[in-house]
Each structure stands twice: as C-alpha cells, then as structure tokens.
C-alpha cells in the first residue's frame, strides 16, 4: 500500500448564483424605463427636427439655392478647417496621454488638472482669453510687444488664434479619454508586441494604434462634435471686421437667418445636423466592430497607469512645461482681471497697478449679478432632470430585459441625437415655446434634452461594466437591480450631473436662439460686454473669471468622482 500513488480529490466548481435569465418584468420593462427620456427627447429634439426637415422639403429649391449661394462654401470650408483642429487636439491629447504614463502620480494629477480646467470654462472665456493674449494692438497683447501693429490678428493669422483656443480647450478631453484607453490595453498584448515587433514604430503601428482605435473613436467623436458646433469662440474672439471671413456654418445660419429664402434656413439646419450625425454613426459602427463584447475588456492585466520604466526625467520636464503652457492663458485672464479697467483697456495684462476695480466695474450695473441666480438654478434643474431621466433610461438599455437589437437601435439613435446642433431645432422650438421661453423650466427642458443622449450613452457604458454578481441576484428574484446598479456606478451618475450643470452654465447658443433678448444667462451678459472688447478688457476678464470659477470649482471639487465616472463611462 505504501507504494500506491497518492490520491487527491478533484472537486468541481459550482455556480451558486441564482439563474440570471429569469425576470418577471418582461421585455417591455426596458421601454418603461426609457419612456420619460424618450418623451422629453421626442418633444424637444425629434419633433422639432422633423418639422425642420419637412419645412426644408416643402421648398424643393431650398437645398439647391443654399449650395449654389456664393457665400455658402466659405463657411463649409471653414468647418473643415475646424475638423482639422479636432484632429490636432486628438493627436495632442494622445501624445500627452502617452507622456503622462511616464511621470509620477503627483505631476500627472497637476497635468490632468491643467488640461481639464480649460475644457470646463465657457468657450466665451476661452475666446476672450486668447484674444487678450493675441490682441492686435501691440501695447496690449501679451505677444504683441515686439510685433508689427495688426500682425497677429490679420485675416490669415486669426486661424492661429482660433486653432489655439480650440486646441487649448479640447485637448484635455481627448487626453482624459486616451489616458483611460491606454490604461485598458491588455498587458499581455504589449508584452507580446515587445517580443515580436522590432522597433517602437512597428510596435505602435501593429499593436498600439489598432488597440487604441476604439478609444480614438470615442475621443474623436466628442471633439469632432465640439468642432462642428464651434460658435461662441468665433463670435467673441474674432473682431467684427473680419468675422465674415472666418464664419462657420452654425454662425452663418445665425447671421443669415433673417435674409434666407423660404426653406433655406431649415435646409441649412438639416445639413448642420447631418454632417456630425453621419460622422458619429460611422464611428459608432466602427466602434461596434472593433470592440470585444462587454465584460471581456481588461483581459489579463491592465498595463497600469505608468509604463514599465520608472518616471523619466525628460517626460517629467515636458509634462511640467505643458502644464505651465496650459495654465498660462488662465494666468493672463486672472492678471488682466486684477488690473485697473482703464489700464487694462489701454495696455491689457501689462498695465500697471493691481486691484479689484475691474470686478467692481463688472458688477456695477447689476446685470451680471442678476444673471447668476437664474443661471445657477437652471444648471441645477438641468442636472437634476438629466439624472432623473438618463439614469432610468440607461438602466432600461442594460438590465431591464430589452431585446438586444432594439437596444442597439436606441443607442444608435441616441448617438445621432447627441450631435443635434441647437440651430437644427431652434426655429420650430422657438415657434412652439414662444410664450414659454421666458420661464426657466422650458429652457431647462431644452438644455436637458440636448444633454440627455450623451448622458444616456455614458451611463449605459458605465452600467454595462457593473460586475454581474451585483445584478444577478435581484434579477433572478424578478426584482429590479436598479438601485444596486446605480450604487455601483455612482461616480458615473455624479459625472453626468456635473457635465449637465457645466454645459448649461456655459451655454450661450441656446439662450441666444431661444431666450434673446432676456439676458438672464451669464454667458449672454459676457457676450454683450464682449461687443465693447476694446474698452472693457478688464471687466470682461473679471466676468470671465467669475463665470469660469463656478464650473472649475465644481469639477475640481468632484474630481475624484469625475475621474472614476469618466473611466466607467468610456470603459467599453
């Protein structure tokens, strides 16, 4: 017996979870969760869009007249230039995300904060800041000291200003998305690449770029939509005399609104929607093809936040430099706001003397202060409504038993609706809500509907990444897993609320199209002030600082949640 082989028990593994396929709620429960969000989006986005399309088709010549007009092609070309800016922002975001992998945690946090702050200030503030730096009068602009008068804001060079303003604002978003994407590349993939691919470039070409494609698509989608919607920056950063040369389609629609032939305005509105919607759907289609099924991402080991090497000295220096460059415009804005109003008007940031006179001047007529409360309450209301509508909708799309094909269709529709520019729905909305828009609830519903599709998509992704055991048990009991899912993905919910509040706080275009001339929105007040840019640089800077402080403080205060929320939201 002593020579007999040793015996070991081979024990099978059981799956003690209750069967997850059973749900007493049936397939219609998903639609129940979606219903409130669908109702709001239908009323505020789909129906007005349909009315716009119908109106444009009522005049068969509208599209032909529009595209044959001599002044149509310049804005279209300019829009393509903006798309180029989007590519630059994405490339820069990727580069910085790669750079940030090799630096220590603290510097990475500083870099993240420096890149994120511009993304949450209103585009108006971005335009004003860059205009303060590149002011065409040499005695005022930061860069104009040694330059020939009018050099920097000439018609050609204005694109440099616009490009920099856009890149400054949106690189941070691309950076955040790419940073997350790089963190999710499978560790074993990189190890294999290191063994088999000779050289860094082959490694990047064969492994890194294909693996990053889904992330690049998400980043590209967000930044591309922002580029096609460029409106405020052009409006405020470009002097009136040369604005017609840098018009984009959105602005062209607004300027020509009263002189268009019948149906032409609607036709342009439809085009404004179709361009980004097509891009979004194409990207979504690619995204579906390239992504592994949910739950299988992550694979065997993430690459982690830092690379295999320790923090490099060059990378640290470069990161610090980038952070400093990105914070410079903020510093200029802050310094200008602390100058005397007269001195700031004459010499800009280089004026002598400090004080809060510009702030006092900005607040003197009371319009800015008066606009603060309605803007804040509207932002709060939108945040609340978006959460109340988007959270059930996202749950409906994930764990409420909806058919997969129906869910995919809703997601595609949401992606398309996320790209709707306010111009495409403004006219019918304005007509219907003519008597209501003075009230806060109506305008808040419009804002809510505009944010809602993106919020639903973000939350849906976040909910899909909830570990199965969290949802299995309540579902198996025929019980809703709603609360457990929300609890597990609370950061994503907070992120959506903060983004909705920031979007509403910063919005100019919706207020301008639907609420003008009731100037009870902070960006509207700033825009009015910006019309006298030459004489009111100090108060304008002070207003921009005050307006920007709210979203920046909000984002910094919820920074930890936002990082987790975005990670969960773009995790697929």
């Amino acid at each position: 017996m002593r020579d007999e082989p040793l015996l070991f028990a081979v024990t099978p593994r059981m799956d003690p979870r209750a069967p997850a396929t059973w749900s007493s709620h049936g397939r219609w429960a998903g639609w129940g969760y979606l219903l409130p969000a669908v109702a709001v989006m239908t009323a505020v986005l789909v129906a007005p869009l349909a009315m716009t399309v119908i109106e444009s088709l009522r005049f068969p010549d509208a599209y032909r007249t529009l595209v044959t007009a001599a002044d149509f092609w310049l804005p279209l070309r300019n829009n393509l230039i903006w798309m180029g800016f989007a590519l630059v922002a994405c490339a820069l975001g990727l580069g910085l995300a790669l750079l940030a992998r090799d630096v220590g945690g603290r510097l990475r946090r500083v870099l993240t904060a420096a890149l994120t702050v511009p993304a949450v200030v209103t585009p108006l503030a971005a335009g004003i800041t860059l205009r303060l730096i590149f002011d065409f009068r040499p005695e005022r602009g930061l860069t104009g000291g040694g330059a020939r008068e009018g050099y920097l804001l000439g018609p050609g060079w204005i694109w440099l200003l616009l490009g920099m303003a856009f890149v400054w604002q949106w690189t941070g978003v691309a950076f955040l998305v790419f940073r997350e994407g790089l963190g999710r590349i499978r560790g074993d993939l990189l190890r294999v690449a290191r063994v088999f691919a000779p050289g860094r470039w082959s490694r990047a070409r064969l492994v890194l770029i294909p693996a990053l494609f889904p992330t690049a698509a998400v980043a590209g989608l967000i930044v591309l939509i922002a580029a096609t919607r460029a409106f405020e920056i052009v409006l405020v950063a470009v002097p009136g005399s040369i604005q017609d040369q840098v018009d984009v389609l959105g602005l062209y629609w607004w300027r020509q609104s009263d002189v268009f032939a019948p149906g032409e305005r609607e036709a342009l509105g439809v085009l404004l929607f179709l361009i980004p919607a097509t891009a979004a759907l194409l990207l979504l289609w690619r995204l579906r093809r390239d992504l592994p099924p949910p739950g299988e991402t992550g694979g065997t080991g993430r690459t982690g936040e830092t690379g295999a090497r320790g923090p490099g000295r060059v990378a640290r220096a470069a990161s610090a430099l980038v952070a400093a460059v990105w914070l410079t415009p903020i510093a200029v804005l802050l310094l200008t706001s602390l100058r005397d109003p007269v001195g700031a008007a004459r010499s800009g940031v280089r004026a002598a003397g400090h004080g809060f006179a510009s702030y006092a001047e900005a607040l003197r007529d009371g319009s800015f202060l008066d606009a603060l409360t309605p803007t804040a309450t509207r932002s709060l209301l939108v945040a609340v409504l978006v959460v109340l509508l988007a959270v059930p909708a996202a749950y409906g799309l994930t764990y409420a038993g909806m058919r997969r094909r129906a869910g995919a269709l809703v997601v595609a529709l949401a992606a398309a609706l996320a790209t709707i520019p306010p111009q495409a729905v403004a006219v019918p909305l304005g007509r219907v809500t003519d008597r209501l828009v003075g009230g806060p609830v109506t305008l808040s519903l419009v804002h809510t509907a505009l944010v809602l599709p993106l919020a639903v998509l973000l939350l849906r992704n976040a909910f899909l990444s909830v570990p199965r055991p969290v949802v299995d048990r309540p579902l198996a009991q025929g019980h809703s897993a709603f609360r457990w899912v929300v609890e597990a993905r609370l950061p994503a919910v907070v992120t959506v609320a903060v983004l909705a509040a920031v979007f509403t706080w910063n919005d100019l275009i919706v207020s301008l199209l639907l609420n003008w001339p009731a100037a009870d929105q902070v960006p509207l007040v700033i825009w009015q002030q910006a019309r006298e840019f030459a004489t009111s640089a100090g108060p304008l800077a002070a207003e921009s600082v005050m307006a920007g402080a709210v979203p920046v403080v909000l984002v910094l205060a919820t920074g930890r949640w936002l990082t987790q929320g975005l990670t969960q939201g773009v995790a697929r």
Partner: protein
Amino acid sequence: MTPPPRRRRVTRLLSLLPQSRRESLVAAVTVGGLVATALLKEILTDLALELLPLWILLIVTVPPVVIFWLRRRHAPGGVPESPPLTFPPPAERLVGRDEAVRQVVHRVEARGLAVVQGSKGLGTSAVAIAAAWELEPHTARQRYADLRGQDRGRPEPALSVARRTLGVLGLQPGAVETLDAAAALVGDALRTSGHTLLLDNVQEWTQVAWLPRAPAVRIVVAGLLDGTPVEEDPIPIGSLSEEDGLALLRAKVTENPGRLTSADPLPRSFLRNPVIVLTIAAWLDRNATMRVADLAGELRARPSDADVLATVRRRLSHGLSPHAARLLSVLAHLPVEEVATGTLARVAGLSERDTGDAIRVLLDNCLVERPRSPSRVRAVDGAALIVDPPRDRAAVTRALAGQLAAQADAHSRRLPEDEGARRWFAAEDTALLKVLDDAAPGASAYDVWRIGDALETWFNTQHRQTDRLDAARRLAAAARRLKDREASVVAELRCADVGLALGVVGSASRHVARAFESLPAKAHPPQLHLARAAVHLTTQEDLTVVEAELARYRQALPSGDVQGLAVARVNIGALLLSGDALDSRRVQDAHRLLGAVAASAGDGVDPGTKAHATELRALADWRLGKEQEARAGWRRAAAMFRRAGEPVGEGRCTVHLGTSLVASDAAEAARLLRAGRARLPRTGVPTALACLYLARLDPGQADEHVTAGLAALVPWDDVSEPPYIGDIRRRLEELATIPS
C-alpha cells in the same frame, strides 16, 4: 460620536431611489406632475421667475420625500440589540428554594455541571439564576444563554445550541461542524476565562448532553430537560409549600393587600405553583375591589394547574383594551414564538406607540414575556388557548412573511461584514425557516424567494452546510406548494450544490434530476447544466456527458458573463484532470486553462473561483512532476480561499499540501492534514482522504481515523460508486486490519 462612514451616508442617500415599480411610478408621476404643473403655471402667469426657487425646491425635494415616506412604511425593522451576556437579575425574594440553590452550587463546585430540572412555572429558572449569582457575583465573568427557540414544540438542535454557546463565550461559531469540537472549545474557553455559564430554558437533555464536564468549568443548565439520564442526578424543582405560596402571594399583591388577611378560601394546592400565584396576584391588582373568594369557585372545578392558569389568564384577558386584545390574539397565534415589537406592530396593523402601550399592559397582566432582548416579545405558554385567533389570521401570517422577507433581504445584503445584520440573522433564522415551512397556497412566492435567498446567504457566510441544505429543502417544498417552478429549481440546485459539497452524491443527483424535470428544456438555466456536469464529474460515470453539459452551460450564459465563463473553465480543467488514464497532454491543457482563470484580472471573476483554479492548477503541476510548484500553488490557493471566506476550500488545499508531504515530512504532513480536516465537513471525499493519510501517519489513532474516513464516504444510494471511491474505501479498510 464617530460620524457614519461616507459610504454609508451615500448608501442612505441612495436608498431614496425608487426600487420597485410602485415607487418608480410614484416618483415618475410626482416628477411628471410637478414639471407639467410648472409648465402650466408659466403659461398662465408671468410670475414664474419670482417663484423659481420654490419650484426648484419642490422638484428636487418632493420625490425623495415621497419615496422616503413610502419606504418608511415598508422599511425593515431595526437590528435587535445583542442580548446581554450577564445572568438575569435574581428574584427579589426567592421563597422556599434555599435548599435547591445550595444543592446547585454544591453540584457545580463538585462536578462542574449542575442540571436543574423542573416543569414550566415552578421557578426552575429562578433557582438556577440565584445559584449562578452565588457562584459568580462578578458580571464580567457571567455568561447566559436562553435556549427558548422560535419554533414552538421543536427544541433547538444540539449543534445550534453548541454554536450559540460558542457565540456567547466570544468564539467564532460558524466553522464548528461537530459537537465534540464544540465541547472541546467550550471547555477550553471556560477553563481559561474563568466564566460561569448558565443555559436556561433547556427543553431536552440532548440539547446539552454534549457539554464538557470537568471540575475546572462551571456550568448550570435549567429547564424541563426531558430525557435527562438518572446518572446525571438532576436537581428537581418541585412545588412550593402552601405557606411559601401564600407568602409569595402576599408579597406580590400591591393593591389593597388587606384582602388577603381574612380567612383564605382559595384551594391551597393552587398556591404551590409560583406562576399561578403570580397570575392571581396580577388579577387581584387589576381588580382592587375583588377578593380571592371571587375566583375560588371557578378554580375549584379545574382539574389541573394548566386549566387553573388558563382560567385566570382568560379573566385577565377579558378586560383588555382593544389594542392589547388584538396584540395578544396576533402574538399568540403567530407561527413563530417571539417577534420584534416593530414587526409585531406592522403585522397587527397598529402604530408603534399603541403597540408599546399595549405590550406594557400585557406585561403587567402576565400575558406576555420579554426575552432577554428588550425589543422583542413573546406570548406566555398556552396563550393560544385563552384568546381566539385574529379574524384576519391568514393576512397576519402573510404580513409576517412579508415583513420578515423584507428585513431578511435588506440585512442579507449587508452580510457578512455588518455586525447588526449578523445579529439579526442569529435572532431570526429559525423564524425564517418556520415561515418557509408555513408558506401555504396564497402566500407570496416573492417573499418565499427572498427568505430562501437570504437564508442561503446567511448560512453560506457562516459555512453551515447542513443548515444550507435544510433551508434549500424547505424552500423547495414551499415552492412546490406555491407552484413556483423557478424557485423550486433554484432550491433543487442549492440542494444539489450542498449535497456535492457533503459528498452525498446520490441525493445531489436526485435533486438535479428533479430540477430538470420541473422545467421544459428551453427554460433550463445554465446552472442546471453545470450541476449535472458536476454530478457526472463526481460519479465519473460518463465523462462525455460532462463535456456536453459544460458546453451547454457556456452557451446558456448571458453575454459578457465573465464569472460564468471562468466557472466553466475551472470545471473543464477539473474534467481534464479526472479519469483513470491521464495523459500528459490533457494535464498540460488543464494547466494552461486553469492558469488563465487564476490570473484573470479585474473584479469580473470572484476570488473563490480564482482560488479554485489555482488549487486545480497545482494538482496539474503535481501530475506533471513539479512538486515544488504544486506545493507553492496549494499554499497560495489556501490563502486565496481564506481571503474569499471559503474555509472548505482552504481545508481542501491544506489536505492536498499535507498529502503531498506524506512521504517526505511525516510530522508536517500530519499537522497539515489535521488542520485541513478541521475545516472540512464531516462527510465528503476530501475528508475521507485526510482521514486515510492521518491513519497512515498516526498508527496510534488509526482506528479512529479509519472509522471517520469510512463514515465520510456516505453511501451513494442508487448511484454506482466510481472506482476511486472504492479505492479509498479499500485502502481505509486495509489500514483498519493492520495491527497498530
């Protein structure tokens, strides 16, 4: 005061979110209504801007308030406070029991254990408590447990009493599977701590027969103690003398005691029973103008003490307020023995304040009792005989099931970390089992589901396999009565799971077969295929069936179920490592597959599954001749199982490790095998293997190990045993015949 952790605050806030269709509907209607009203208001007036903050406030606050209100109406009750560990306060005046108390003290000091035996109402507990106080006046060294269970007429099983005793002594009760192990632990704890233990209201001797006896320990047990053997020499508590009874009555009557000075026409024999005396005293106090003579006539006709008691109590119950009468009626006819006052209030449909007042009245009238937890209450014995059941009895029973189900659901989500949740289950698990037993057609299948699930979670975290099996069987029976096929299948699967863990393969196989039959093939959940695969893997009857069922399990998993896929891979690994003829290619395949599961990142795969994969991969290493790697793997797997809260897995790995050292390091191997066996259930193949190698390494106790090993191989009933079981049995029997 420490502020609550942020996570809890967040959870509390989140608890305001709607959780059911009804709450969602209310929230949706409220929000929709408010938004619509706001819109309407804007059309009608130009004052919206001025009133804006009010609307915002309403929209933001009203839905949570409504949900909070709704939730509060259906909220689970609070956590019961821990019953105090010290002895109950001694009776102010113990009449006529001095000799009995002296005997108890003497018996404990001489033998370590005194048995105080007496019928209900005779003051058995009072004697035991007085003696215990005399033995140990310092409260820090007193330990007390009341063994009155939740199940009327069914005494708490001995193992459960043992676990309760361990808990009272501050020891971890969960992993104890045998009474011998419990006795050793209790003896050690009492010896080292110097505590005196009093177990009160013991119904049967078998409940406490396992207790250790030694001069260094001090234990008093008291109660009816049916079946106590004569050699235990119990100290009987008999009736009082008539004089003592009268003295007790005089001491207890506070209202107009002059009534008792006149010639007493009450039959003297009634004064011999303390509980009758106390009840008569309560009646006299309630009726200050009445005399004892008013009762005497009626009581004389009663043949027994129980009848007398019932008569006085019935009289007491006649003058109760409607709330108190309702509460007594509900409490006396509930299927459980004791209940939290909050739950009772909801079940009876009374407010908490009315319930509190009514309970005070009932306590004054000796119609209900408080157990050691002040938030709980129970009707006196025989209460069901003196009050009629409530007219809405079925509804009351359903409401009790609903309340307990909601509380069980809420508390089970906080297991295993939350101390309050553990305390709640320790107090209510028997009641939950009773509710499962009593679930009749008309009861809510949803409540039955929730109770079954909560019990599964509770017993699983406590590693109480036999209780898991018991709960699953009761759930299965309840589901069959309610004709809920899905709940029935879940219960059968659980029975099969526990059956396999305990090595009761025949029973597991029957449960799987029953589950298969109760659903059409299309509706078979993935777990059913896995269970069938696991049964066939254990019986090794037809390994192709295992392969096919595992494939079906994988196909039936919902998309993206990483955990399910990992479980499937672990079982494929187990399949590749099973069977008689093992070729190295199969073992290498298993090694690769299990390695991938063990190394899987993220929280998609639970730690227990990863530990299981690590355990089996180490076995593959062993089969490939890599002994060092195998041992390192088992050590790692044991640690992973420990972190995952799976002591059985940890025990299995420790046994593997010990087995691997049998030839090279006998002392270490024996130590590991003992440690591993202590974590395993009494039955099952790993236990049998641990016994086999212990018998080989420890010839002095070989017979004992062989007996335990053979007992661990439970007969497989109608399923034929595979060769490897026969092999273990043969080796064990060979060892038994070798002279030690």
